[in-house]
């Protein structure tokens, strides 16, 4: 049953991408306790960044990636200090509306600067494939999977073994105890939010040669990331990565086996959100943190 094998490979490669897209959101929520509704727009900006690097400067998206990550980090830091920091104590309503507003602004800055036309980056590895037996692997997807894997591995190692990484986990687990250790929570919030933005930009850069780039691509990405983060347990990085693969596999299976399945795939993410929230509001896989 070659098609099944092919489906699993596609799902696996797509799962890596979904993981990178949602890990940033999960980190942001784990530490700063805010679901950033503008996360999809950071992915969009990353995609445009890689696209313009390739078309104007003839720099391959993978070479542009480090610069985009740094830019994303700085942008995230400024956005946090300038705007997001003021609503940390505000009720959930204000936080949701604020990030919603930021999403609207970023979306339409993109429309004003680059119009609504469809674009996609086309480095030569985007479409070339290798055939193994009668299963084909698209180079672009494999590369995206590998880059996503390395970035997530780097993130988890940094969180586990570095001083600041431990400090971030400490703030996420117990804000007051972290202060007693000499950790400045304000700085850690800004750092975590900036990293979450940088991760969004990075996933945008590697998505630029896989799917279409438009100013309005952010919203559907956000909803998928929210479904994954909720399935994986809010704030748990490991849970998020596992549930990213689960969602990718579920979507691919529905697309293939259910009649007119391609139409229903988007419904899978929403069914997951509603289903999980009713069964176990704190998410299933990762041990969720007390919000």
């Amino acid at each position: 049953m070659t098609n099944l094998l092919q489906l699993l490979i596609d799902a696996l490669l797509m799962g890596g991408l979904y993981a990178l897209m949602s890990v940033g959101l999960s980190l942001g929520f784990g530490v700063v306790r805010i679901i950033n509704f503008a996360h999809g727009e950071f992915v969009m900006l990353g995609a445009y960044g890689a696209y313009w690097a390739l078309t104007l400067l003839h720099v391959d998206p993978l070479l542009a990636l480090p610069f985009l990550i740094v830019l994303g980090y700085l942008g995230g830091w400024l956005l946090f200090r300038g705007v997001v920091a003021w609503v940390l104590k505000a009720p959930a309503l204000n936080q949701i509306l604020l990030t919603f507003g930021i999403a609207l602004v970023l979306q339409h800055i993109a429309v004003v600067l680059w119009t609504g036309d469809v674009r996609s980056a086309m480095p030569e590895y985007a479409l070339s494939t290798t055939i193994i037996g009668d299963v084909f692997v698209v180079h672009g997807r494999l590369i995206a999977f590998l880059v996503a894997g390395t970035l997530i591995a780097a993130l988890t190692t940094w969180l586990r073994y570095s001083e600041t990484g431990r400090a971030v986990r400490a703030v996420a687990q117990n804000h007051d105890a972290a202060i007693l250790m000499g950790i400045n929570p304000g700085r850690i919030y800004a750092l975590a939010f900036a990293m979450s933005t940088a991760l969004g930009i990075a996933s945008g850069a590697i998505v630029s040669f896989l799917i279409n780039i438009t100013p309005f691509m952010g919203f559907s990405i956000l909803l998928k990331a929210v479904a994954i983060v909720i399935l994986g347990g809010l704030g748990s990085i490991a849970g998020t990565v596992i549930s990213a693969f689960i969602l990718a596999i579920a979507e691919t299976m529905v697309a293939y086996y259910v009649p007119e399945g391609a139409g229903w795939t988007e419904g899978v993410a929403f069914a997951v959100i509603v289903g999980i929230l009713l069964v176990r509001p704190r998410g299933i896989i990762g041990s969720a943190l007390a919000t």
Partner: protein
Amino acid sequence: MGNIRASDLRRGAIGLVMGLILSTAAHAQQEVRIGLPVELSGRFVAFGAQIKRGVETAVEIWKHTRGDKVAGRDIVVIEHDTQSNNSTTVSVMNQLINSDKVDILIGPGGSDSGAAAVPSWKQAATHPVWIVPGVSTTVVEKQVGKDPYFFHTFPWTYQYHETIVAGLKQALGTGKKVAIIYSDGAYGRAHIEYARQYLKDGGFQIVDEELIREGAPDFLPTLLKVRSAHPEILYTLVQTNDAILLAKQIYSAKLNIPYLIGTFQATLPEFKNSLGAVQNCWTGVNSYIMNLHTKADQAEPKLFPAGDEWEAAWRTKYHKEPEYMEVGAYISTMLALLAVEHSNAVDRDHVATALAAQSYQTIMGNSRFGPSEIALHQAFGKVIDFQLQKQGDGYDNVIFYPPERAGGKLVACPAQ
């Protein structure tokens, strides 16, 4: 706030209202008001921008040749952005018809906007002449029915498939196995019925029909199902964004299907620029294709110049190739202005009868309006089948049907 008495409020409101009523009435005689309900932001911003450029150029060239007025009236173009949002489209149509009291409506471009615009036009007591240079979905044709004030200068869905299937039949004979991929939106749903009907009548064997979701990131599962059906022809009914991604994923999945059939997307610059080599051997239809070296119209050589001259002028003005909806909007505006000039009136009956009687030789062929399956006034229903074939380092639209305009033959896509 508390101290304003209710009576003051009332007196102020009435004064405002009277002022408004007087001003609109006075303007009616000396103007011809053209309303543009166009998408200037949102998903269909590309179509809206094209229509706007087409209308602007037409008015400019008219003023250049005939002077600032038409039949003694100033030309006033009123444009409102529908934001590619159907509820905004309803309010924009209401505003143009009832408040701006336009004489002629031109637009919108996208099928969804067109579908949403119909009810507010039909419900208006004396709805104005409405020329639509875009919108292919027959949902609109069914809603508009035999209305004498509706003019369509763009092919309907079935006119696409009538010509595509005829071209395929002439090139490949009958009995070939066909797989169809269609989108779950208005576009796909509208086209699938006619595609099925014309392909069956044309003697083709439909082996697979697959639905895809508009804006989905991954079509591979669908392509695997198509691959197991082993079709010789892949017939796709999707709009620009999905068409680009689908073309890329078909290429990387190495489906090796000899004939790749699309509808309009192969003509769009976004399709060509985004795909590069991947666009090779995709076929499509269009009512307008560049450098067909059409001749100028005898009666109005300045308003409808020769193809090459008009295209050159367009390139210098906008530094880009002209696209079909720009040409459609240009011609629609010219026809409208000529109708006002011939009938020397702006009321809808005179303009409608004058429009229906006209016949000019334009870049998109003869402009005569005739009945389509349901609607009364349809122009430029004839489409041309073409295939993107590699010529030197670029890709050209090689026409293979109808025979009298063919410049080449349909070729199978190279195996990967």
